[in-house]
């Protein structure tokens, strides 16, 4: 087994809950955020509970070099080096926020502690609320305390089950920056269950698409979002998220140049420093294709691209096309008529004109 495989996560579980059957076999990367995405009832939460050992399924679970479950062994939940954030914060009602975050921390041998209380309090910005009991905290504050509490067990992996779904819009906006910061600061894998495309766009590096207890797709975010054989492609806001870095600021026009692997685009200046990592969201409907580099257009982001695959869209008048700029895949939505008149086919070089690109904040 090579080193990369030993770093990764292997989950192979089968279980049934009444009529519902879950059957997964997943290889996941050993770092970054893997989003389990699907409708409610698709089995994503059950999958997470199986990995944690909260639901006892048949199969094998290996996190890096640690085997948590195989044919003969089942490591009980409290002996697994995991942290779990539940949908509702589930703070212990008889303890203050401080006692809550210390609960797991005190149960870890001092030598194994990698995250200290001050650090977690600082990351989640909960210093002001430590002396309060859970009933004196807002929903968003409770969830931040719960995340700090989970991280203070210095876990080998972080499991999050729709941590934002029970929160109102404002609380979601309040927590998202903390999650994004954790995404950059943690060097442990995060498995993140969600049904929100928005949260996927903000946080995910890897995407696992689930339906009816099975895995439809598992791969890096951009590659999976641009696959033409999956149901997400037909959503109204189908598109792709590109990891990029701000490399240039054009003060005069309030624009920044964002570089991704294989190309760069201009976007509105978000006020972040040069060198900052950001995510660009490009919707399929915001790209058009041309056979020649067009001049005399208002569109600034024009790049050569290669056609990779053409596929069906929801409406028969439309088509979806996966193109590649350098190594980055993008999805383009156009009419069947245009595709026909441009004689688009795999391998053909075209010019992609990106009308609009959003920096995800």
């Amino acid at each position, binding site marked *: 087994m090579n080193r990369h495989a030993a770093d990764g996560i292997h989950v192979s579980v089968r279980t049934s809950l009444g009529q519902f059957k879950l059957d997964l076999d997943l290889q996941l990367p050993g770092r970054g955020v893997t989003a389990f995405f699907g409708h409610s009832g698709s089995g994503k939460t059950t999958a997470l509970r199986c990995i944690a050992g909260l639901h006892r399924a048949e199969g094998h679970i290996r996190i890096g070099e640690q085997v948590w479950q195989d044919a003969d062994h089942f490591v009980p939940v*409290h002996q697994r080096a995991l942290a779990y954030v*539940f949908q509702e914060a589930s703070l212990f009602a008889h303890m203050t926020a401080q006692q809550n975050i210390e609960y797991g921390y005190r149960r870890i041998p001092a030598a194994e502690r990698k995250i200290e209380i001050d650090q977690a309090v600082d990351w989640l910005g909960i210093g002001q609320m430590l002396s309060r009991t859970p009933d004196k905290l807002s929903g968003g504050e409770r969830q931040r305390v719960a995340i700090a509490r989970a991280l203070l067990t210095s876990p080998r992996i972080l499991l999050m089950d729709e941590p934002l779904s029970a929160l109102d819009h404002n609380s979601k906006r309040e927590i998202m920056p903390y999650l994004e910061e954790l995404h950059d600061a943690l060097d442990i894998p995060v498995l993140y269950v969600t049904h929100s495309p928005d949260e996927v766009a903000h946080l995910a590096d890897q995407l696992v698409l689930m339906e009816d207890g099975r895995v439809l797709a598992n791969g890096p975010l951009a590659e999976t979002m641009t696959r033409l054989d999956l149901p997400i492609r037909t959503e109204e806001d189908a598109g792709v998220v590109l990891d990029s870095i701000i490399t240039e600021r054009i003060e005069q026009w309030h624009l920044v140049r964002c570089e991704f692997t294989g190309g760069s685009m201009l976007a509105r200046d978000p006020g972040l420093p040069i060198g900052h990592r950001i995510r660009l969201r490009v919707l399929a409907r915001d790209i058009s294709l041309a056979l020649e580099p067009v001049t005399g257009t208002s569109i600034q982001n024009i790049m050569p691209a290669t056609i990779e695959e053409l596929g069906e869209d929801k409406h028969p008048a439309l088509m979806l096309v996966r193109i590649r700029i350098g190594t980055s895949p993008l999805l383009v939505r156009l009419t069947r008529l245009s595709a026909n008149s441009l004689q688009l086919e795999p391998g053909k070089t075209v010019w992609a004109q990106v009308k609009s690109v959003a920096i995800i904040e």
Partner: protein
Amino acid sequence: MSVDWQPVFLTIKLAGLTTLLLLILGTPLAWWLARSKAWYKQAVASVVALPLVLPPTVIGFYLLLLLGPNGPVGQLTESLGLGLLPFTFGGLLVASVFYSMPFVVQPLQNAFEAVGQRPLEVAATLRASPLDTFFSVVVPLARPGFLTAAVLGFAHTVGEFGVVLMIGGNIPGETRVLSVAIYDHVETLDYTQAHILSAGLIGFAFLVLLTLYYANGRLNRSNTL
């Protein structure tokens, strides 16, 4: 006017020890009843609840046979050199534990069920073993249940009469508890003494329940998330 304090102290001793024993025995039983999915769980629950519906004389009668010289438990206690339990304080204690069991087990079971699955799962993901979880999470969250169980177990033992008569008799300092003493006073037409003890018991029972309801009202409010 002199009050015979001996039955009062004996009653407190009996009720106190009964409550203590029941909290020790009843807690694991209630936990099992609250969590188990075994098919025979309802049968066990029914046996625990029997004293609620049976006349105390029935329980006293069978305990008497069981603990007596010809009963299996009686023969065991005799062969162990403990003597026979009927008509001793020990026998009364054993009987009280059976008789007051539902009053301790049921509030505990309800409290454990109310704690629910989630806090246990959270504690497990925070590296707490099941036993650790029980003492650090379940007991504090089920505190109103423990209070109710202790108070009801104590108060109900104070109020028992039929079982005492059947298995304890009326031996001063040994088995002559308050309820029996009151019965004695009435039989001998000593209404003054009967009044003192009876009115005292009414006051005691009222105070106990009042304290319980206030305390649980406060706890329940502070425990809502």
